[in-house]
Each structure stands twice: as C-alpha cells, then as structure tokens.
C-alpha cells in the first residue's frame, strides 16, 4: 500500500509513501485508494482538519503515471481516466473540514493538481521543493482539474504562464505566485503544522495575491481578456511554431472556461486532454521523456563498483569560444578553473565570454550578483602551467590539429597532477592518438561539448580502448554535475553527432549546386521542426569550423564526406558565419541571405527544387549514417542516436528522434527511397548500409530490434 490514513489528536493525516520507489506517483491504484480514504474522511465528524503529506524525502508527489497515459488508445478511455482523477480531487475540494497540503519536495503534474484541490497549501524551505504543471512538455494538458483550479488560485495571467511554458516554481517563488500560503522550516515541521492548524479558525482564507491594475484589466474585463489571449496565442505560436498543439489547446480551454462553473470547465478539460493524448506528438514526447530521463542518469557499463573522483579544481587549455564556455560551465558548478592560452588577449576573450553568460544568468535572476562575482573570480588566466599540479581535471580546447593536441597531452602528462583526468574537447580528431601521446593513456577521455556550451545539453563522452573505468565514471559524473546529458561514444572519426550531421550539411550544399536557394533549403528544414536550417546552423558554428570537420571526416570516413565546392568557396572568401558578420547569411540587425554566396555557386546539374524530396534526401542521409554508427558500435543503441540528435542538434523532440522518425516512416520505405536516390543521383552515399538492409530483411526496425 502506498497511501495511508491515520488520526492523531482529531487531525486526519493522509500520507503518501510508495514502498516500491523513491518517489510517489499517482497511479490508478493510488487514486482508487485515495478515493476510498476520502469517502471515509467525508463521513467523519471528529476531524478538525485533514493534512496531506508525503513520507518520501524531497518528494511530495512527482506526478501521474506516465505509463498509464501512454497506454491510452481510445478517446473514451482518455475522458474516463481524466474524469476519474477529476472526481476524486473534487471530493477532496468539497470536504467540509479544512484540508492542508504540506509540500516538502517535488509536487508536479498530478501532484500539483492535488494540492490545488486543498484549501491550504504549505511548503517548506527545502530547496528541493518544485511545484508546477509540466504536462505541456509531454504534449498534453493538466487533466485532473489543473486548468480549472490554477487560474482560480494564482490568477489567469500567472496560470497561463505556468501551464503553457511549464514553469516550475521553487517554494519561495510559489509563495510569491500565491500558489502556497505559507513557508515552514523543515526542522520542527510537526510543531509548526500544529500551530498552523490551531490558528486556522481565526484566519481568513487569503484571496489570490492582490492583482495589479494591469492584471485586473487583462483578467477581469472582457476587452482585457481578449487582448490578453490574443497576445498569449501570439507568444505561444512563436515558440510552438505549429508543431506542438498542447499549449494552444490550454489557451483554448482557459479562454472558453473563464468564470464558468466547475463541471463545465472540467468537461472541457477532459475533452482537451483526450484530444491531445492520442496525438503522435504526445506519444513521441513521452518516448523522448523516457530517453532523456534514462540518459540523464546514465552510468558506465559494468562499473558499479567504481567510484567517480571528485573534481574541485580544473584547468582548461585554450580560451576560445569552446574553452571560455567550458570554463564558465565548470566554474558555475563551483570548481576553480585555471584557463591557459598563449596570450592575455585570448584569455581576456575567454573571460569576457564567461562573464557574458554569468551576466545573463543574473539578468534572468537565475543567479545572484554576488555568486556571479565569486564564480568569475574562480576563473584565473595563465600563460604557463602554474597551478596545474593541483588540478583534478584538464580539458583541452586548443586548435583542432592532431599534432598540436598530441604535444599538449605529452606536456600535460608532465605538468598536471598524476591523478588528473585529461580530456579533449575535440569534435572529430582521434582521441586514441592523443591518449597514446600521454604518459598514462588510461586517464585520457574525450568530452565533446557543443557550441554554445552553456545552452547545448549534450556532451559526447569519447571512450578509447585505453580509457579506464575510473576515468569514464568520473567523466560521466562530471557531465551530470554540469547539468548535461551524456552519450558514450566510441572513438571513431566524427563520433556520433558531427558524423551524422555533417553529411546532411554537405547534402544541403550539394542542393545549392543543383540550383536550390539557401532559403528554400533552410525553410524546408525549419518547417520540419529543426530550430534552424543547415546554412543558418553552419553560420552559427562558423564555416571555418564546419569545413575543418568535413575535411577530417573526408579523410577518415571516405568520399561521401568530400566537402562540396560551395563550402570551400564560402570559407575561402572569409565568410566565416555569424562571428564575422557574413556567411551564407548577412548577420546584421536582421538576417538576410548573403547575395555574394549566390554568385559563387556554380550550378552543375540543375534540378527543380522540391521541398519533400529535399527533406527526404537530407533526413535519409542522416538515417543511413546513424545506422552505420550503430553498425560500427559507435553507440550501443538507437536511443543513444536519438538523444544525441535531439540534445546535440535540436532534432525536433515531437518527431521522437531521428531513428524513431525512420521507424515511423518504415524501414522498407527508408531503404527504398535511399536506393532510389542512389540510382537517380548516382550517389553512393545513399546506398543503404548493411544494418538497414538487415532490418528490412528481418522485417523489424531500429527500436524493435
């Protein structure tokens, strides 16, 4: 049993305590039991108050059971499931005695909806307290009365913000929002709860936080609400870009039900829920949620008994875009960082980049100014190796040249602490060669961060045949501590993400040489759901970086990566992309295609542009390359590819990931279209790889295999 009722001193306690896991979840079973308890409580006259709390550390209720949501296949089933929860929470809301939720940890989704149905909500000062409705992230809307109660508790404007953007609140924020009534210290919680209960009769239930004049206009007048929803829709559309129906549906429900009686609101909520939960988007988002949860907690293969070493002091070599970004990231997590480069101008640039990220965090109130100053002071510049004898970790981000890198690793073997993990941020070069240059290859590992470092959630951990378990486990722990998602990859040229991505960029370039335009291609890709098209991406990364990686892949993996001419030309013309102001686009106050690029293109064989065909060419080429990666065991499962592509390139989560998308298309179709392109474009690069043919023959797919 995971939910208990006890009476103590005329107060009823409903305690959630799931014996099978670290968290409480509102499964159908738990809800049923809660329903029974509420029936019992309702009939009792000896209770002064009912307290709802969790016996779990740092968790109140983490949410509804996602597996049950995923299992819904019929609209009627969805409506019934939603109504089941709604009815129970109505019962809770309708109890005659005061109900008090004590939130000492995570109260998300259904857990948040449960506390909303209580008359009083208390939270502790525990910094693990997280309250919010993240349903939209899974492609659904809160289906247990959240859309009914949230606007009534915190006001319409705040409710819209909380539900459509899935904003999760800390306890102090929740107090500010009026979502909780009071904060209590964790120590002596029982006593302060007791005192609170004794005070209840003399206290007036505080109405919502007092509204500002602007809020009153936007929420309480017809015209104001019209303007408010118009603006909310515009803002949501800008983010969801038509790919994600859930936030728009939330707005529809909230607008239609504003001020309506409970049953009408809940009926509309159920209907909205049932419509969303059956969409592919929802199914894919749930799958991606599982993937990201799994990889966020990734542990090394058979390394249960290996303990990660603590990293307190780190050094970064090279204060460029990546080096500066990595230094910032390390120092933000409390590590002191020695930042080495060949001159102080370079170090200054690195410091400036780090400062910018901290300043942004302060501006967004994610960090206070004092902490930002401290973190900045933790990064010190140096031209020599002084201080390296005390570091636990070195990450080199010097120029991408294998000879220089080998020299660096040899030097590091001499100067760095003999325990230090020696990592490279190379995006394509051989980590194994670098390891062999080091005195102890077992301490060498690749940590491939993506640009911009503070925003991109993925880190490829490159394992060489020499990398020790301890090194790998320490690298994994570090990546997780930095708040990033790790994917472990084998040391083959280009690793995973760049290898899959660069063929696609090259294909885009090839289509330019067939007469397509930069905007035609980029628009095709953004319409598919990627955050930017191949050329915008190239400009973002830098054409110099792009061409360099292409060269490495070309020499390491063969002809299919031979850079198309236009990339060489654009790079040679000095159009480096965003950093130089000009690339495939002109980057001024607004972005427009660079006309000089158009004039550089020599159209070899003109083909009429067709967006669906262009999309197929680019996507299937990626699928083929990803399949090769699986075949060569660069990663051990299809999920790793999808996590890598979603986190590393922004591949649209609502499509479920690159290989999930291929599975949706059907392996037969993928192979058939690849073969078609191989023939019609005389492109060997399209020849379906062995694994694809194998899957096809077996009649299976990436995830089923």
């Amino acid at each position, binding site marked *: 049993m995971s939910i208990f009722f006890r009476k103590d001193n005329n107060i009823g306690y409903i305690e959630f305590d799931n014996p099978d896991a670290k968290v409480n979840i509102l499964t159908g079973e738990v809800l049923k039991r809660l329903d029974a308890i509420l029936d019992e409580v309702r009939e009792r006259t000896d209770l002064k108050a009912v307290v709802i709390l969790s016996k779990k550390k740092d968790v109140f209720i983490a949410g509804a059971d996602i597996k049950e949501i995923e299992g819904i296949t019929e609209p009627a089933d969805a409506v019934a499931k939603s109504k089941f929860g709604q009815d129970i929470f109505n019962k809770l809301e309708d109890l005659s005695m005061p109900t008090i939720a004590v939130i000492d940890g995570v109260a998300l989704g259904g857990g948040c909806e449960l506390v909303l149905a209580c008359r009083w909500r208390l939270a502790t000062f525990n910094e693990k307290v997280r309250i919010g409705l993240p349903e939209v992230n899974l492609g659904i809307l809160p289906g247990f009365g959240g859309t009914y109660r949230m606007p009534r508790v915190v006001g319409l404007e705040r409710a819209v913000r909380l539900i459509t953007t899935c904003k999760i609140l800390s306890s102090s924020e929740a107090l500010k929002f009026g979502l909780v009534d009071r904060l209590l210290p964790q120590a002596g919680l029982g006593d302060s709860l007791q005192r609170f209960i004794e005070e209840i009769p003399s206290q007036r239930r505080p109405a919502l936080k007092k509204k500002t004049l602007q809020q009153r206009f936007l929420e309480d007048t017809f015209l104001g609400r019209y303007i408010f929803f118009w603006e909310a829709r515009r803002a949501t559309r800008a983010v969801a870009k038509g790919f994600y129906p859930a936030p728009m549906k939330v707005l529809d429900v909230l607008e239609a039900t504003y001020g309506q009686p409970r049953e009408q609101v809940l009926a509309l909520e159920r209907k909205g829920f049932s419509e969303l939960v059956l969409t592919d988007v929802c199914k894919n988002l749930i799958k991606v949620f599982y993937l990201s949860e799994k990889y966020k907690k990734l542990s090394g293969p058979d390394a249960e008994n290996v303990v990660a070493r603590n990293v307190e002091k780190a050094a970064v070599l090279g204060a460029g875009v990546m080096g500066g970004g990595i230094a910032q990231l390390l120092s933000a997590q409390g590590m*002191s960082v020695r930042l080495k480069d060949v001159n102080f101008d370079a170090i200054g640039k690195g410091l400036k980049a780090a400062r910018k990220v901290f300043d942004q965090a302060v501006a967004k109130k994610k960090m206070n100014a004092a902490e930002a100053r401290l973190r900045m*002071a933790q990064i*010190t510049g140096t031209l020599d190796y002084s201080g390296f004898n*005390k570091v636990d970790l070195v990450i080199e981000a010097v120029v991408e040249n294998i000879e220089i890198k080998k020299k660096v690793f040899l030097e590091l073997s001499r100067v760095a602490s003999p325990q230090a993990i020696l990592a490279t941020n190379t995006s394509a070069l051989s980590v194994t060669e670098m390891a062999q240059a080091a005195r102890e290859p077992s301490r060498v590992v690749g940590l491939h961060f993506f640009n911009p470092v503070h925003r991109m959630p993925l880190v490829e951990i490159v394992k060489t045949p020499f990398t020790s378990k301890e090194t790998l486990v320490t690298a994994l722990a570090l990546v997780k501590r930095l708040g990033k998602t790790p994917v472990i990859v084998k040391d083959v040229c280009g690793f995973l993400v760049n290898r899959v991505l660069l063929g696609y960029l090259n294909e885009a370039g090839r289509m330019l040489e067939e007469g397509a335009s930069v905007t035609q291609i980029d628009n095709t890709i953004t319409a598919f759901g990627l955050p930017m098209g191949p050329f915008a991406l190239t400009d973002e990364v830098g054409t110099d970086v792009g061409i360099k990686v292409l060269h490495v892949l070309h020499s390491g993996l063969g002809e299919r990566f031979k850079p198309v001419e236009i990339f060489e030309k654009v790079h040679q013309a000095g159009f480096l992309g965003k950093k130089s102001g000009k690339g495939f686009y002109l980057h001024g106050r607004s972005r427009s295609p660079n006309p000089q690029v158009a004039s550089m293109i020599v159209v070899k064989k003109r083909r009429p542009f067709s967006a669906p065909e262009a999309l197929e060419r680019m996507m299937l080429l990626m699928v083929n390359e990803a399949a090769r990666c699986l075949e060569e065991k660069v990663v051990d499962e299809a999920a790793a590819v999808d996590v890598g592509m979603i986190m590393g390139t922004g591949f649209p989560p609502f499509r479920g990931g690159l290989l999930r998308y291929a599975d949706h298309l059907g392996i037969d179709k993928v192979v058939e279209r690849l073969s078609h392109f191989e023939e019609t474009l005389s492109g060997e690069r399209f020849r379906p790889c062995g694994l694809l043919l194998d899957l096809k023959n077996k009649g299976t797919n990436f995830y089923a295999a």
Partner: protein
Amino acid sequence: MDRIAIIDGIRTPFCKMGTLFNDLSAQDLGTIAARELIERSGVDVKAIDEVIFGNVGQPPDAANISRIIALTAGIPKTTPAFTVHRNCASGLESVATAALKIQGGESLCILAGGTESMSNIPFFLTKELQEIITKLNRAKTVAEKIQAVLALRPRHLTPRIGLNLGLTDPVCGLNMGQTAEVLAKEFGITRQQQDEFALVSHQRAIAARDVLKEEIVPVIPGPKYNKAVEFDNGPRENQTMEALAKLKPIFDKYSGTVTAGNSSQVTDGAVALLVASERRAKDLGLEPLGYLRAFAFAGVEPQRMGIGPAHAIPKVLKKVGLALEQMQVVEINEAFAAQVLAVSRALESPQFAKEFGYEGFTGRIEPHILNVNGGAIALGHPVGASGARLILSTLKQMKRKNLNLGLVSLCVGGGQGAAAVLERS
C-alpha cells in the same frame, strides 16, 4: 626559535586612481593576488591556517575584507580571516601580525598581504542630509514628509569625499601633504631636492620594468576584459626636472615645496604574501624567498608623521643588534620626497641619535641602495598594500642580487613609523 619565512609573494600591477583598475574593488584586487599566489606557489589551500590582509579604506560593502578575499580566493570556509589597519603600514602589519601568530604557536602558515582600491573610496552624505533622509523615512504623514524635505538646502548636497577624509589627520587637523610641508620646512629641504628625488624614482622604476615583472601578475580587468595590465602605470618614461618644476605646490600655495610630482601617487593595487614558520615551510616542501628577522613600530607627532621611519628604523635595528650600514638594500616608502629626505637627514644626524638614544643604530643610507627600483612617487601608494609591496620587492631584489640583509620602512598617517629587517640566509 623557528624563523618566520616569507615563502613567496605576488602583486597586481599598481594603477593610478581612476584608470585601469577603476572597475575593480579592493576585494577583487586582493582576490586576484591571493589566487595567483596560491597557484604559483603550489601551496595546498588546506595548509593555510589564517588569512590576514591589511586595508585602509575598509569598503562599506566588504566588512572584514580578508574574509571576503579568503573565500573568493578558494581558501576553505573553515579557515578564519581577519583584517588589520595600521594606516599606510597595514600591509606590513599583516605580516607582523602573521609573525606574532606563528611565534605564539597559533598558526603555522598564513596568507598575508594588503589591498587598496583608492578609486573606490566612497563619497559620503553630509550629516544634515543624512538626518533629512532619516526623518523622511520615519515620517508617517504627508505633512511630516513635506516638512522633512523642506529642511533641505543646496549645501547639504555637497558630498564629503572619503579619500580626503582619510588623508586628513583628525587629531592635528593637517592633511598628509601638509605634514610633509612641516618636515620640508623643519629640515630645510628645497623644492629642487624633492624634485630630483622624484625624478630618480621615476627613472629607476622605468629601468626596472622587466625586473618588476617578476613580482607582478598580469590582470585583465572586467567587465570588459579588453586588455591585460602587465605593468604599473605610474612611472613616467619622459619625466624631466623641467616638467616637475612646472607643478604648483598644492598643500601650501605660497611658500610650499610639496607638489603632486614629488608626492606618492594615489593608486589601486594588492599584494599577497605567504608566511610560514621555517619548519612548516620545509614540511610543505616550499622554498622560502627569505625571512622576516624583526619588525618595530614607533609613534611620533601626528603633524610630523613622515619622520616615523627615523624612529622605527633604529628601533628595529636595536632589536636585532645590527647597524644601519650592514643593510644591503633599503626601502623607505616614498609617501613624499620631502619626508624620505627628512628621514635620511635625521638618521645621519649624530644629534638626533643622541637625543633619542639611537646611537649605533643610525647612520647614512647610501642613495644607491635606497629604493633601487623606484618608489611610491613613481609606482604609487595604495595605502593598505604598500607595506606588503616593500617586503615583496625587497626580498625579490635581495634574491636577484644575492644579498643577505634588507630593511624596509614606512611612515604612517596619524604619526607612526614602521620598519622590518629581512634576511635570506
């Protein structure tokens, strides 16, 4: 007894007030020096038992600045820290206090130093304005509020400049420059002599640029991080007697001789020194730069504060039983040229020695061993840091020239002198 080892030290460049370090606070500067010293010396931060910095300005947003520097520099939170203030000798005081703590057996290894951001010494409100604001805050009714505001007069808005307040002696009422004028007149030191002294300071500092690099950590000042500051910006390459002669006396317009050119510069900077008992240094595997043999402080009339070294020097020499002639390198902080020259003359005078009972511990300081790499007139005088700089510079110079004995001394606002004897073998 275990000697007091100075293991190593580092300082930021010294930059004139309002220039390159304008955006750095005293705690920022102190942190930079402390961190770099830790990195370069290779000391384990856990081996540091206490942090003691000297600071004069005592920034209102950095109460107990040593603690802030300690925490920001990555020294464990369990390590205590406190700040010392002996005016212009605060940097030396930090080392003296460290020595006493080590000798008393309370600590084995201490991070000492001094820091000052004279660019960031705040302006203060007038007392009247302060009262009006207080009244306004307490006012409950609109009428009371109006009443409070009506008391405001334009003169109430003139700020009181913290730097000027700090440089004025509240007991004798003279500012520091005026005390230098007192000495110049008493000892008959001419304008020409002061300017010549100042010129040498600049020439020596310029000549020593590369030498001084050894003791300096380049600083890339935020928030712009545009350029690294690698050198002190006080020394003037083309300083001439003519240019110095053109300056007007600032503290006594009519009969004065003290000018901005022959006074120390108002400057930002920080110094960090790692101090430990000789045995602890050995245990930690750290090679000391040198040792602090002894230190002494002496009191004088506040209006003659610049003469302080003439008393502190014989006092410290007496303590160790060494003659002034045995000192191979001497640093006397150049608060004012007039004041350093007055000290030299007093020490040369047998009458002076007799009067105060300093016989055997005074004498002539040869100009070629005095402030060999320039002094505060060229390099600047970040008041809380200078004392520590003298120790650092002198020990580095002694190491370079393989000398054994050195003497450092400062005059101290409020009427004191400070001195210390350093040795290497």
